[in-house]
């Protein structure tokens, strides 16, 4: 087919071909970066953007996934109305908020001074200890939660055993004797205790992450400032509150923002500790747990989509408020 063209070329054809190959070259030249980026864009589009758009669509429909994609039915705002008037949604949101608070505040209150101490200790010790504190963060949440579940267990759990030991010990009995009246404590069975149990696990897992952020932050503070302060007669506490803390502000701001977002999305720890929402779920279930239940146990994808948008807005609101109050100062500006 091409032989006729090759043996009998005309100028017009040649020009056209050269034009074409030029255009092709510029096309490839211009698009090359995008081709290199395309694996990311495709993956992000499929797993990042598409689900978000699909969820918006879904939240205005009723859909039982078991019935197949063809059974979606448009219901307007019904899912939002149903969810916003659902007492369980408010209860789980409240649970989430409390657990975020109980686990979040101590994380930073402990991580800040601990990071400061670590930095004082010198390089060697710091590296080892930071790694040790960071270890829970890189360990599987499910594994951690399951181990804590065993430790929290009522009769044989190590926590109750230790408390019993304190209560009946000859030296500690006077201070802890009252524990005998409340033992054994159902740490993960009682609605009155579950939030503290979950919060403790979350605190334990993430405190190391914050320590790492804060030690990195402290490393940016020049030694000269401390030296000048020492010369001015500042003691250790003053150096911490007057130099380290103010200069750490952007880091604190960053770490707290992550904590707010992460804690409001809390799922794994309460899910495992309530044994798949089978016990102490009234106070232990977070809003993420609840939306999972609505979606996958109750097979109501539309409502679940609406709940996740509500959660998104709540997180947006909290982070927004946080930015509003602390944003400018937090980021180091005035």
């Amino acid at each position, binding site marked *: 087919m091409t032989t006729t063209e090759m043996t009998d070329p005309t100028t017009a054809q040649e020009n056209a071909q050269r034009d074409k190959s030029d255009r092709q070259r510029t096309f490839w030249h211009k698009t090359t970066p995008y081709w290199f980026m395309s694996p990311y864009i495709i993956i992000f589009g499929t797993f990042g953007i598409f689900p978000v758009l699909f969820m918006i669509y879904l939240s205005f429909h009723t859909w039982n996934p078991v*019935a*197949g994609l063809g059974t979606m039915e448009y219901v307007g705002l019904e899912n939002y109305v149903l969810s916003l008037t659902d007492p369980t949604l408010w209860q789980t949101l409240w649970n989430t908020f409390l657990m975020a608070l109980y686990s979040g505040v101590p994380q930073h209150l402990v991580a800040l001074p601990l990071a400061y101490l670590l930095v004082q200790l010198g390089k060697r010790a710091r590296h080892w200890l930071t790694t040790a504190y960071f270890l829970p963060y890189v360990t599987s949440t499910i594994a951690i939660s399951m181990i804590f579940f065993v430790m929290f267990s009522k009769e044989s759990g190590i926590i109750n055993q230790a408390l019993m030991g304190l209560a009946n010990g000859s030296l500690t009995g006077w201070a802890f004797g009252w524990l005998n009246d409340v033992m054994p404590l159902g740490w993960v069975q009682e609605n009155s205790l579950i939030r503290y149990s979950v919060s403790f696990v979350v605190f334990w897992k993430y405190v190391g992450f914050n320590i790492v952020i804060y030690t990195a932050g402290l490393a940016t503070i020049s030694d000269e400032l401390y030296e000048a302060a020492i010369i001015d007669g500042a003691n250790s506490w003053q150096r911490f509150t007057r130099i380290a803390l103010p200069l750490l502000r952007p880091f604190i701001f960053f770490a707290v923002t992550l904590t707010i977002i992460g804690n409001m999305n809390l799922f794994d720890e309460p899910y495992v500790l309530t044994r798949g929402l089978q016990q102490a779920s009234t106070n232990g279930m977070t809003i993420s747990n609840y939306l999972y239940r609505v979606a996958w146990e109750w097979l109501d994808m539309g409502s679940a989509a609406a709940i996740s948008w509500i959660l998104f807005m709540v997180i947006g609101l909290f982070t927004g408020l946080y930015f509003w109050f602390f944003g400018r100062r937090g980021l180091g500006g005035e």
Partner: protein
Amino acid sequence: MKHIQGLGLALASLTLTGGAMAADLRLDGFPDYDSQLEAILGGFPEHNVDMLMNEHGGHHDKLKTNLATGSGAGDVVLIDRNFVGSFVNQGGFVDLTDEFAPYSDNFAPYAVTQGQGSDGNQYAVPVDLGPGVVYYRRDYMEDMGYDLDEVMTDWDSYLDYGRALKEDGILLIGNANAVATAYWNFNVEPGNGLYFDSEGEPLVTSDRFKRAFELAKTVRDEGMDGNISEWTEEWYAGFREGRFATQMSGAWLLGHLQNWMAPETSGNWGVSNLPDNTYGTWGGSFLAIPRQSEQPEAAWDLIEYMISEDIQLAGFQNIAAFPAHTATYDNPMFNEPIDFLRGQRARVLFADIAENVTPVEPHEGDQIAESLIGTALEQVLNDGMDIDTALANAERQIKRRVR
């Protein structure tokens, strides 16, 4: 060339029409069914069967995703009784009414009903059953001078036994919520579903649920249970150490008790009907063919094989899956004494229960009702909420959620 093309066409048409061609099938399920399949597939040369096993929860989650997206499910899927209600009415499965019709009389009637959609068609076929029973410690009963009939006369006599046990420091049951669950599951009024009546109205404020909650609350308030969560290490230890005198469950608990939970307690146990001579069911599995399967006929061949009498018996032997096929109950195996139960011929009792359970219609809202009632029970038992309030709350939420 032409010949080969002709041959290809002939082959293609053969495959399309199904016929005698061997198909590649996949069965999706959960353990122990892998052990059962490995043992029985040798006798099923018609098709090549592959299996995909996930743990119980993961398997059902995967199945939901497969049904949602219309792809990825096996040709045959195993479904737990708890999920059947929410699955059969959603149109995701092949209607097996005609295929199953010649066999249905041989299967426990209640289980056949459970596999039917509200249109009366058969979408899931029972493959094993969970006759509901109570396991009890014979030695405790003897020591206390009680006999079985006296204890199991009705629920009040059962509680009286619990009070007597408590004096001796033995718990009646690990967790009071098993008492409530047993009561509302096994006393369904004729014509009603578990949680909904035939009109789809929730029944959770009815006397059945009130009584169930009262029984469990009595057990809890009087300290007859240990408030120990089922299926935790502490629960297993409770069986091993003999802390509980009774446990309500499906017949299948026997396999767990004697194999790993408390083998050392062998000979101390017995099994009985529930108090008040109630017949009930606790668990069980079904087989179904997703509509997305490209070879439903071949898939049916596999189901037909798995529900055949011999294979049902093999399942009982291999994995203690209690047969759904009632003709198997005449097999001499059912008369064998069971050492763990001190020589009791328990399988006769299981078979009797399986044949006498009243059918209960599944409802698509069963899952929602189950978790909301579970929460209500927890609030009553652990947080001291008033029974009527908790049930009324549950009813209100069920009505909102079941659309």
